[in-house]
């Protein structure tokens, strides 16, 4: 009896350790399960005869093809951009004769601009997004020769982002004045930033925006970063 009593006592002193040790394991299996919880839809791989044809003809130029919320997208390298676009326009399983939109997205961390081409085919009644990436100092081939629409759309991308298009017939600013300094839709261009010099020269007013755009803007004491 004494032994039996002793044993529980020993166990009662001992249990805290196993009891404390047992609860931690359940969180450990749970913890790896938590990170992959997807919030919202994820891109799904997408294949079609068109993608196969592109892969066959251009091989390594086609980076990937996927579908996001039912919208098909192809990521390509920019080296043979015009060839690929002409192919998409003319091939009879594509017939993307209409360029709905062309625009850019700035990704400052990668120092890159993503160019987005939204194509539409009347025959097939479908949209297709083509994406490619470029650096600031590298020009992209212009697609004006493929679709006339691209003329103003590329001028706007140049105006807002400073992306250069090689072979564009008339690459000038379109919405902003020709002698404006800075590219407003870049991420490092603050919302309140303005070409104060231009405003002073042409409008004869001090706009009250104290921020300064120019070559040395990062050294200027007036310059603020977008996070300020």
């Amino acid at each position, binding site marked *: 009896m004494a032994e039996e009593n002793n044993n529980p006592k020993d166990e009662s002193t001992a249990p805290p350790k196993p009891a404390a040790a047992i609860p931690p394991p359940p969180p450990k299996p749970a913890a790896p399960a938590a990170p992959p919880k997807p*919030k*919202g*839809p994820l*891109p799904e791989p997408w294949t079609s005869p068109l993608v196969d044809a592109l892969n066959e003809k251009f091989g390594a130029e086609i980076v990937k093809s996927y579908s*996001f*919320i039912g*919208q098909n997208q192809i990521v390509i390298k920019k080296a043979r951009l015009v060839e690929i676009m002409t192919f998409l326009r003319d091939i009879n399983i594509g017939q993307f*004769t*209409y*360029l*709905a*939109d062309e*625009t850019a*997205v*700035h990704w400052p961390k990668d120092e890159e601009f993503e160019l*987005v081409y*939204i194509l539409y085919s*009347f025959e097939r*009644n479908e*949209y297709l*997004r083509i994406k490619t990436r470029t650096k600031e100092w590298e020009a992209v081939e212009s697609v004006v020769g493929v*679709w*006339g*629409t691209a*003329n*103003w*759309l590329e001028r*706007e991308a140049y105006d*807002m982002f400073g992306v250069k298009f090689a072979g564009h017939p008339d690459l000038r600013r*379109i*919405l*902003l*004045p020709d002698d404006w300094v800075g590219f*407003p*839709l870049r991420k490092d*261009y603050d*919302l309140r930033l303005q070409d104060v010099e231009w405003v002073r020269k042409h409008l004869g007013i001090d706009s009250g925006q104290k921020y300064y755009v120019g070559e040395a803007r990062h050294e200027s004491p007036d310059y603020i970063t977008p996070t300020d």
Partner: protein
Amino acid sequence: MSTNETLFDASELTVSMGPQHPSTHGVLQVKLKLDGERVIDAECVIGYLHRGVEKLGEHQTYGQFVPTLDRMDYIAAVSNCLGFCEAIEKMLGITAPPRAQYIRVLMTELNRITSHLLWLGTHALDIGAMTVFLYAFREREEILKIFENYCGARLTTHMFRIGGTQYELYDGFEDQVRTFIKDFPKKVDEYETLLTQNRIWIGRTRGVGAITAKAAIDIGLTGPALRGSGVNWDIRKAKPYAVYSDFDFDIPTGSMGDTYDRYMVRMEEMRQSARIVSQAVEKIPAGPLMAKLSKIIKPPVGDIYHSIESPKGELGYYIVSDGSTMAYRARVRPPSFVNLQALRQMVAGHMVADVVAIIGTLDIVLGEIDR
């Protein structure tokens, strides 16, 4: 230099039309190169109204950005609102409740009528038919009254919210719409008696600014401007959004692609819009106005392109989300901007007076071009 030389030697003359010219519909400058009275080349200078809407979209939450969009195409603010709300809803994976969807279609189509009426009035005024303007604005006023009763605003309406609509219909809304729609087709006939068979009107519009279907697609024309060239393409039919698939309506098309055909297309579109409204008003379902969604809107990481048929053409939104409350990139594909690009090839070879007609027939709004 004698005057004779400039008149008869085919030497080029540059004339700057606008930005204060009344028939440029806003602040558009067209630099015309002329040979006598014939246009050799035209260059558009735009950007006078640039307000940086796309930049603002990156610094406002999705909900806050919607009223800003109303200021783009202020003639058809309801369409702007609809396109953006639907794009975000698509990203969030929700759909507005049926009652909200019907109200959306109804308001958007009424707005299409106001937009076309304003186009008709000003277009005819530019060409010299003053009376049409007065008639067109009479009916436009009726619709604006409906808008005002519904949401308090006439132009920049901000009618819809992401997830549905905010306001319940007011008492007597259906009757007011029914009364208007019952008479409206007759009113369109009335406008047509002033113009369609009018010799001067035909003389000023037939064959002016003609563009073939192939050229129109290449330059990216959409909306009535594309359908005037004979391409039967309307996003309401091709990629139905909202509840457009519930209604019977036709897509009018032209054949010659000239100013007269585009005029006929828009006149018929007004009748078709009235048809949609009269169907919609009879079967507005009961139910909630808003879908269930959290107060803080955070679309998943990714991008989306959603386009709708605005009165001017394809109005597209390309939204890139980084999972936060504000868009990473909020791109608007403005129909007027792309359509205006066709002006250059459409005016070449025409008279100076035709430039006014061609700017009118493109139905541009500078607020949307410059954003």
